[in-house]
């Protein structure tokens, strides 16, 4: 399907309707099956958490959705349109942005340059400037440091930059991979506040987290990933009360 057709299909998805759907994907690293048939869906307006231990395959799922890795079988639908075979660099222009694990801001480039690379797929200068203003409003620290190279920012600031950069493409849905990893407790709270804010202003969020407690508190629904399979799913509030989840992910006896 053509890019514009998919974009239209994505735009046509109403509040509460399925925006992103992952259907029975199997992903291999060589002979090792990392993802063994994962399915889930994200509806417009939701915050969905994908929680699981280290090595459960959370990042692999994220990379498969954004096209960096190809699944051996299964499909990924955005706005009902198949995007499984679309190369990674075309997916962002369809309305799906990613905040990658470990932030991966461009260290050598300035904060401003990083943000503008977030809007790489859009050549509408006026709209980009407008979005930049919005990002600066949400993250005043980024405006203060816009001329600094990203490598000089603290971990928390780099996380803000990675989030701002993803917002610059004006996505319908943002995938966030471990946004709280390695941050001080203060920044962790701020990151989750920002996620709720981003969601509040109309962007759907798929959140991958090891910090299950925070993720479940922020999310509407959640999926628990265990060694390449979805082990549990449900409303975030219900999962939070689930004895199995409390034991395995919330550190309770």
């Amino acid at each position, binding site marked *: 399907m053509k890019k514009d057709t998919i974009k239209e299909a994505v735009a046509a998805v109403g509040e509460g309707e399925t925006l992103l759907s992952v259907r029975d994907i199997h992903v291999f690293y060589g002979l090792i099956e990392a993802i063994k048939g994962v399915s889930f869906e994200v509806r417009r307006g939701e915050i969905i958490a994908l929680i699981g231990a280290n090595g459960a395959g959370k990042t692999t799922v994220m990379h498969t959705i954004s*096209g960096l890795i190809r699944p051996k079988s299964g499909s990924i639908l955005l706005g009902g349109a198949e995007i499984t075979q679309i190369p990674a*660099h075309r997916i962002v222009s369809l309305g799906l942005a990613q905040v*990658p694990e470990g932030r991966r801001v*461009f*260290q050598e480039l300035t904060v401003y340059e990083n943000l503008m*690379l977030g809007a*790489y*797929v859009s050549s509408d200068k006026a709209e980009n400037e407008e979005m930049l203003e919005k990002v600066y409003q949400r993250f005043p620290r980024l405006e203060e440091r816009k001329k600094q190279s990203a490598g000089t920012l603290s971990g928390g600031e780099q996380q803000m930059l990675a989030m701002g950069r993803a917002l610059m493409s004006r996505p319908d849905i943002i995938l966030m991979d471990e946004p709280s990893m390695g941050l001080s407790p203060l920044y962790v709270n701020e990151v989750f506040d920002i996620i709720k804010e981003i969601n509040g202003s109309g962007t759907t969020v798929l959140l991958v987290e090891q910090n299950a407690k925070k993720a479940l508190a922020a999310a509407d629904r959640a999926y628990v990933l265990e060694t390449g399979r979805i082990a549990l799913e449900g409303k975030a509030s219900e999962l939070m009360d689930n004895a199995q989840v409390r034991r395995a992910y919330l550190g309770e006896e």
Partner: protein
Amino acid sequence: MSFLSYLISGISLGSVYALIALGYTMVYGIAKMLNFAHGDVIMVGGFIVFSFVSTLGLNPLFSVLLAVVLCALLGVLIERIAYKPLRSATSLAVLITAIGVSYFLQNVALLIFGSSAKSFKSVVPIGEIHIGTELVISGETVVTIAVSLVIMVALTLFVNRTKTGKAMLAVSEDKGAAQLMGINVNKTISITFAIGSALAAVAGVLLCSAYPSLKPTTGAMPGIKAFTAAVFGGIGSIPGAMIGGVLLGVIENLSKAYLSSQMSDGIVFSVLILVLLIKPTGLLGKKINKKV
């Protein structure tokens, strides 16, 4: 006065090294590989101009333009055919392939043009320039310095000011993250090879105009020297390649003039070893921070 003239011709030679070194350093920055066939693109550029001017009798400037375009295409083709299939291979495999491509180009030239040196007709239309009574600068020297300067300024602006340039910087830092921004990594790598090879063609023409002997192995020595210049300046750094190239040319020429013309190459490489001992990343090289 003679010191000044040695210095100026050293800068001129160094500018050529710098143009070639830019190709090495940009390709290394983006594709993380040492393209040892890069030097031979110089020779191909020289032979294209030689054929068009001396054999077909075309206009020299037009021929240079054609050579630049053809070499850019050659660079893209080399990457597609030889290096792209090896993106995820070990760096040793890529290195050996690059050496293979280098021999391939040299031998194709050998088949077509034979092993004897051709006399290259300078494409520079201006003659010697006399300043005062003692200082004489050849037209080639002036043109080489001027052309290199313009190219270096243009390239710096291109990389730092344009969207494509920024994409190149992003790809050289993190291919995966660049893709997530919507940057087409394959296209960016192709553009880099095209630019590097186009610069090599220009360097080839300038070099052959100043030292008018052309044979299939003509690109080898300047290629190695330019690679040295790129490492000297800090491989991966664009300003580093420019400074490294010019310094190398000046050191080479001054050693030839004042120390020993036979030892000049040895002196050049000794300087490299010295720099690398003191600063292993080269003059402007970046520290490689690997965060865990």
